[in-house]
Each structure stands twice: as C-alpha cells, then as structure tokens.
C-alpha cells in the first residue's frame, strides 16, 4: 500500500551490486489522482542532508525500467500509474551512511485540462521527510 507522504519509506536503501554499494534510491509516489505519461513529467530535484542532486545525477525507475531525466520528455509512450511507486536512483560510490537522513524531493508534472497558468504547479508540490537508511 502507499503512504500519504510523496516520499515513501519502503524502498529507501543503498543500491548493492555484489559486495559494492553503487548509489542509493528514494521511492516516490505520484501526488495525483490519475497516472501520467512520462513526457508530462519534469526532471526531479533531490536534496539529501543539504546536498542537491539534479538533472543527469538522477534516474527514474518506473515499472522496472530505468529512464534518464533527459529521456522523460521523449517517452510519451510510457505510463506511470499513480498507484505505482517509482524510484529515484542516484549513483554515488558507497551510497549513504546507515542512519537518519533528511530527504527532499521535488518534481512537477503537467495537466493539460488546467489553465496553462497553473498547468505545472496545481498538483505538484515539494516533499521532505526524515528517514532512516539501514543498509
């Protein structure tokens, strides 16, 4: 089941590749009552403990497939259902230290049936959460 927070707890962990940690991941839900096509999604910005990641430092795992942020606007053929959790992937040797982290996530998405003035910002909102990473 989903949590109300946009940033979800389940799935927050480092990415283990064999014995090595190659990065970390942050699961997020779509704060919207319906799903969207990936070209409606805009690149996310992630801040962990004051350090900000943007653009090509972040990839999206949606439905088990990985997309770069530059790729999103070209993928009007891929759908992200609002009941499915997506995962933001950040490459970082060694990942995050086990313990408490302040995580902030912001991304926008487009809703064409709203006036252009509020298209991107009516539903989109930033979220932050203090979360424990165990491994």
């Amino acid at each position, binding site marked *: 089941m*989903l949590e109300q927070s946009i940033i979800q707890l389940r799935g927050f962990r480092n990415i283990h590749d064999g014995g090595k940690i190659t990065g970390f991941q942050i699961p997020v839900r779509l704060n919207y009552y319906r799903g969207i096509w990936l070209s*409606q999604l*805009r690149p996310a910005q992630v801040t962990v403990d004051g350090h900000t990641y943007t653009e090509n430092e972040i990839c999206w795992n949606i439905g088990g497939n990985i997309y770069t942020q530059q790729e999103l606007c070209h993928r009007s053929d891929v759908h992200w*259902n609002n009941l499915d959790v997506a995962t933001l992937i950040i490459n970082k040797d060694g990942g995050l230290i086990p313990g408490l982290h302040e995580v902030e996530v912001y991304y926008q998405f*487009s809703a064409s049936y709203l*006036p252009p003035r509020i298209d991107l910002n009516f539903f989109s909102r930033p979220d932050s959460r203090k979360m424990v990473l165990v491994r």
Partner: protein
Amino acid sequence: MTTKTHQEKKPYRGVSLYCYAEELGFTMTMEDCFADMYDMGATGLEILANGHIENYPNPTDEWLENWFSLLKKYEIEPVEYGHWVDSRLVPGQQLSTKDSYDMLVKDIKLASKLGFSVMRTKLGVVDEILTPVPNWQEFIEMALPVAEEYNVKMCPELHQPTPLKSAMVDEYVEFIERTGTKHFGLNIDFGVFQSPEGRLQIPGVDNPPSAPEDMIALLPYTYACHAKFTHMTEDFIDPTHPYDEIIKILIQEKWDGCLLSEYEGGNRSVPGYTSDQLRKQHVMMRRLLGEI
C-alpha cells in the same frame, strides 16, 4: 447489466472512484470500494482509466478476469470511463489532431473492452475559462465512427466556471446537432449549481451558479452526471448544491442516466470519512428519487 434500474426511466445511483483518491491504494483496495458501493446500492461505476486500471493502457488478462468477477460479485455496471486527451503531452507542443485521435481511439477500445458505455472525455484547455483546444472538433469528429463501432459516447464534462448557458456549451450542442451523432454528448457536473460561497475563485473570471432548469435543454445529450458534493450534514442535507431541484428536474424530464457521486470535500485521507460522506449523500438521493 443492472438493466432493471433503467426500466422506470429515472436516474439511478453510482459512484466515481475519484471519491476514494486518498484512500484507494492507501487504506482501501478496489474491491473495498466496490463493497462500499454495494452497501449503498450504488450500481453505476466511474473509473479514471489512467490510475484505476493496473498497467494502463495494457491491463493483463489476470486483471481483466478479476475486473469482471468483481463487477459481478458486487452487482456493478461500468458506466463511465474517465480519460484525457492530454494536449500538452509533450513540453512546448500542442498535440496534433492525429495524435489526439490516436489517444482517443486507444481509450475507446479499452473502455469498450471493460464494458463501459460512456466516456468522460477530458479535453486540454487553452485559457482560464477552460476553452478547449482549437482542434477539438476535428479529432472528435474523426473518432466518431470508432466510438460508434465500439458503442461508447464521448462526453466532455460541463464544470464550473463554465455556465451551462455559455458559448462553449452552445458549441458542443451545435457539434452534436451538425453531426447528428449519438456518440458524443455531455457530462454535467452538478458543481455548476453550487452556491456562491463554495465556488472556485478565479482571478478575473466571473463564476456564477447556473440554474438547475438550464439542464433541461441539455438532457437529451447528457449521458451521465457527476453528483458533485463537498459536505453532507448529519440530517442528510447538502447545504451548497440544490439537489432537491436538480433531481426533481431529472425525474420530470425522465432522464435515466447515472448520478455518479463525486466527493470533493475535506478529510479525504481520513480513513472512512469519504465512505461516510458518500453514504449520507446516497441516503439523500434515495429520498429525492423516491426510493425510500
């Protein structure tokens, strides 16, 4: 499916799953929503395709099998299929007529496969008063033969701040009369009748309530209605939408479509709150429909 409800030529009751947006997936499953509807005798269903259909637009056979078995178990008729023509699908572009048509066709086929007869077709807009994209007549007209083949009716939603008496609604009606189609129509959202205190405040836009009798001329083209509400009292009264007048007119006009509840009030993420509000609205509707 539940054709008995149609025989009397009067409105029947349903629910849009939109109501459960902050519970479905959090504290309720789709089956829980259906069970809730069963308690209310709400036999008509609206879903929002891009969200309620797992793996939309390609549901698995397993999902489809479960879908039909749940409909049967809870005696539910799929009425309205909510979908979008996302005109700003790609940043900086307006969706072409051909691409809009393709998007429509994909949804028409899926709606029909799932058993729906009405589609709430949400068009992209170009301004503050929700004027639809300039090419809407072109791609809708292209899709009419497909809608006919699959036996569904595409219906934009008449929603505040658009009054029922307005150039935009006139344009929809003219399109219907010009084409003579039975596969494009209207969905009236009763929010258009909401009293002034609760209405949307839009800078520079006047947003007065329509009068319930303004529906009368539109009912022949109206294939579903959104029974919008934002608060039901413990006395089963909606203080901001004139349901007594609305339902009186629908009965008098022998309109026999589905009233799909759309709860848009507060506390939607509080478990059980929406269900309680829905139940209160359905007690009200049963009274006004003469069921009790």
